[in-house]
Every structure is written in structure tokens, then in C-alpha cells.
């Protein structure tokens, strides 16, 4: 997540699709095998069968969806906040030498603050108010956003800018047609990385701060030693993360960046 690069378009020779799928399935299978072994080797890891049999009932309860909804909302809200803060920080770093140095010391420091510390501090500042969750997630994510976006602003194409000058494309038209499209790949890179990051931080923050949400449910299930429930929550968590990545973010990215001809 620290790497501030936009993934280059892969130019590799591809395996036939069928083989790739088979190997990927084998990969998923190996996770299940590991789980099965873990389940039978120790008393604590609940076996697959038990978890699966409880899954329908678990998914049917309204409490589960409430918690998932609350946490999703927090992730999206704090990610938006982090994007705005990160963009502002990147713009400052790009525009002004002196304040840029000041800002990059802040960003460098913020990147180094462990999320645990941020969560505990938020408890002092906001008590158990859920605003603390937003603050922690946004604070942890924004320096990464800033780093990626600064890279994007640094790489703005001078030649395209010159064209814009020659045709006097200015103001909002300049922003819409010349600048933002160049930043879009970096923006997506930031969103994709930080969305996953935010989910992980939000669980941690709720674990310390919360009185609601999935992280808090995790912690509660663990405290009561209901390990099947812990694993069920984990499954829901992973499912939400992967589904939103593959069904929302990636298609959206493909749509916005469809002009890139492979």
C-alpha cells in the first residue's frame, strides 16, 4: 500500500483462460484445505461444516446486516474524507515550495503513526462517539492518498498542457478535460488501495472505540469465545471487501479509463 505507483498495463503472455481458472480454483481450494486441517487439529478453529451450517441463519439475522451497513457507511464516509484531505495535501505539496515542505513533513509523520495509537487517541478525544472511527480511518488513509495523488500531479503531461494553452482551454473546461482525466488513474489507484486499507482500519478502530459495527461484533464474539461467530463475521467481511472491489470499483475504473486502448 505504500507503493505510489499506478499499475502498468500488463503485457505478459497469458495462460489459456481455462488453465488460469483451474489454478485459481486450486488456490482457493488450498485455503479451504488449510482451514480443514486447522479445524481438525485444534479445538479452537471451528470446522468448515459447522460454520457453513450456521451461515444461513447468521445471514438471515437483521443484526448482522445492520452492523455491516453501519461499518460500510463508515468506510465510505471516511474514505471520502481521506480523499478530500489527501487531494488538498497533494495540491499544497505540488504548488508551493515552502508550504509543500511543511505539508510533506506532516504527511510523512502521519504515515508513521500506528493505527492502534490513532484509535486510542481518538478514544480520549471523542470518547466512544463513532465520529472517532471516521477520524481514525481518515487520518490513517489520507497520507497514502496524498502520496499517490502528488505523484499524479507531478506526472501531468506538459505537452497536453501546451496544447491547452494554444487553444486557450481554461477554467473548468481545463480542469474537466485536461487535468482531471490525467489524475483519474492515480485517483483510482488511491481509491482501490485505500478502500481495502480503510476496511481493515475500521475494524481495528471499532474494536477499540466502537459500540456498534463489525469490528465491535468481532471483538464481542471473541470475548465470549464464540469462535464460529468470529469466523462467520470474517467471512462476511471478506465477501463484502472482495465483492465491492470486483463488482463496483474495477468495473467503474474500466468504464472511466476505457479510452486506454490495450
Amino acid at each position, binding site marked *: 500500500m505504500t507503493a505510489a505507483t499506478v499499475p502498468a498495463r500488463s503485457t505478459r503472455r497469458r495462460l489459456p483462460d481455462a488453465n488460469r481458472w483451474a489454478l485459481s480454483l486450486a488456490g482457493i481450494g488450498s485455503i479451504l484445505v488449510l482451514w480443514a486441517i486447522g479445524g481438525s487439529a485444534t479445538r479452537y478453529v471451528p470446522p468448515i461444516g459447522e460454520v457453513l451450517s450456521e451461515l444461513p441463519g447468521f445471514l438471515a439475522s437483521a443484526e448482522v446486516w445492520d452492523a455491516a451497513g453501519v461499518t460500510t457507511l463508515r468506510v465510505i464516509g471516511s474514505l471520502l474524507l481521506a480523499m478530500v484531505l489527501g487531494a488538498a495535501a497533494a495540491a499544497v505539496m505540488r504548488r508551493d515550495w515552502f508550504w509543500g515542505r511543511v505539508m510533506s513533513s506532516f504527511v510523512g509523520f502521519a504515515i508513521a503513526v500506528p493505527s492502534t495509537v490513532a484509535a486510542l487517541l481518538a478514544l480520549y478525544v471523542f470518547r466512544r462517539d463513532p465520529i472517532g472511527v471516521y477520524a481514525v480511518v481518515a487520518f490513517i488513509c489520507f497520507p497514502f492518498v496524498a502520496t499517490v495523488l502528488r505523484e499524479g500531479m507531478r506526472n501531468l503531461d506538459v*505537452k*497536453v498542457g*501546451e*496544447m491547452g*494553452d*494554444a*487553444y*486557450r*482551454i*481554461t477554467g473548468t*473546461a481545463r480542469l474537466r*478535460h*485536461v487535468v482531471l*482525466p490525467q489524475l*483519474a488513474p492515480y485517483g483510482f489507484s488511491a481509491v482501490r488501495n485505500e478502500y481495502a486499507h480503510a476496511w481493515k482500519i475500521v475494524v481495528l478502530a471499532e474494536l477499540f472505540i466502537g459500540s456498534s459495527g463489525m469490528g465491535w461484533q468481532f471483538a464481542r464474539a471473541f470475548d465470549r469465545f464464540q469462535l464460529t461467530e468470529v469466523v462467520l463475521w470474517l467471512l462476511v467481511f471478506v465477501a463484502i471487501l472482495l465483492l465491492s472491489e470486483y463488482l463496483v470499483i474495477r468495473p467503474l475504473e474500466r468504464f472511466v*479509463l*476505457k*479510452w*486506454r*486502448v490495450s
Partner: protein
Amino acid sequence: MTTNGSLLSGEVNLMSNAVDGVTPPFLDLRDIVIKHGDRTAVDGVDLTVAPGEFLALLGPSGCGKSTLLHVLAGLRRAHSGELRLNGSPAAADLSGKLRVGYVFQDHRLLPWRTVAQNITIAMKSAGVPKDEWDARIDRYLGMLRVGEYRDSWPMRLSGGQRQRVSIARALAVDPDVVLMDEPFSGLDEVTARAMRLELSRLREVSSVPTVFVTHSIKEALFLADRVVTLSHGPARVLKELSVSLPRPRQYEDPEFARLEASVVADVLKEWELTDAAPGAPERRAS
């Protein structure tokens, strides 16, 4: 080339506009000096562009001819010298006074906007009325034979097609002047030839004054009404040549070949001599 009399703008203005009754040149540059920091890129160039004229600026790579175009496009200011537009002085800065269509060496289309959107964005910024947009897009894309790519992404087009779109964009903004900066030097020879033919054909239907920068003698003679030869950088005017060959021109025409040989002879010693001179390292100006 400097005209007679005082350079005081008012006086000359009076002379050229009212008294003589002669149409003043569309663009008139006098003793233009352009600097990159401390380095002089253009050193006292006089240049006129008549209304409707196709002018070629011929110079070796890096002599500062692109820089001169930047001044005409209002992208940078001249360090000193005088600029007149239709006879009236325009200080050292043309930005905002001229509507230019600019064709760069590379296409410089926005790859994230379709061909039609690219042209629309330029027309909108140039203030072309909205109800003309559609017709203009069709007209100029058709004129450059890329009408079928109206809704394509630029990156799906070939290099030659992109350059055609780029020329269509330059014409569609209803420009006062079209500036072309070695537009065909990035294309392969066959495509470049086809494009030159296309451009000289276009001259028959539109007569926007055009300044065409090139380092190819053939290209300059094939296209231009007048060829201004520049020295190795810092650029000075070496020679001016009116090309009165009939159009469409042929590279194989003996007259064309004779003219080319004479320009080559002129230019060879100049460009080569300065090239070899110590303290004049080759630098790309743009």
C-alpha cells in the same frame, strides 16, 4: 526586410493604413528577440505574413523556429522587438489577440476524449457558436477524410489519422492563423507525402494564413507560397524566397528540383558551417 522610415509605431501605422491604402501585412514581426533565460533563441528576426499566405519557416533542428511559433501563439513573450497585427502594434505579447489553430509535431489530442469531443472542446474555448459545432466537426473531419472516426478514441487511430484530426481541430476553431510545428516529421515517409498532398489540396478551399515550421526543404517548397530560411540557432533570417511554382506541385518537376538544389546549396554551407563552429552546440529549442 525592415521597411523604410521610422519604427515609431504611430507613424508607420498612419502610413501603412490610411495614407497608402495598401493592405498591411496580416502579421508583421520586426527585430524580434526571444530568450530562454540568458540564452538567446531568436536573435532579431523580421517576418511578415500576408493575409491568406502560406509561409514556411525553414531551419535546422533546434534553431529556435518552434520558439518563434510559441510567440505567435501567445504561449510566450518576446524579449524585445515589435509585433503588429493588421498594421496595429500588439506589444510583445499576442496572447488573447489572435485565435490560433495549432498543429503540433505530435497530435496532442486528449486521449480520454473522442475525436469529436476533442474538436468541440477547442471550439468551445475559442468561442465558436454552439449551433455551428456539429456542422463544423463533420465538415472538417470530412475534409480531412477522417469523418468515420468521429466517435472513436484517438488512440485507436493511426499516426496519420491522428494528425488529420489535429489539423481538423486547428481549422475548426475558425482561426485567424494556423501554426504548424513540423506536423509531418513524426510520420513515415509515405504517410507524410499523402498528408502534404492533402494540405496543399486544402489550401484551395480555405485560405487562412498559415505559418509552417519545417526542417525539410522539399516539404517547404512543396507547400509554401513563401519560404523564409533561418540560420542555425540563435535564429536569424538568412533568406526569403517566393515560390511561384504552379499547384499542385510535383517533386519530380524539373523546376522544383532546380529550386530545391539552389536552396540546398544556399543552406548547406550556412547550416553546416554554424554547426561546425565551436561554441554553438546543437540544442533543441522547444
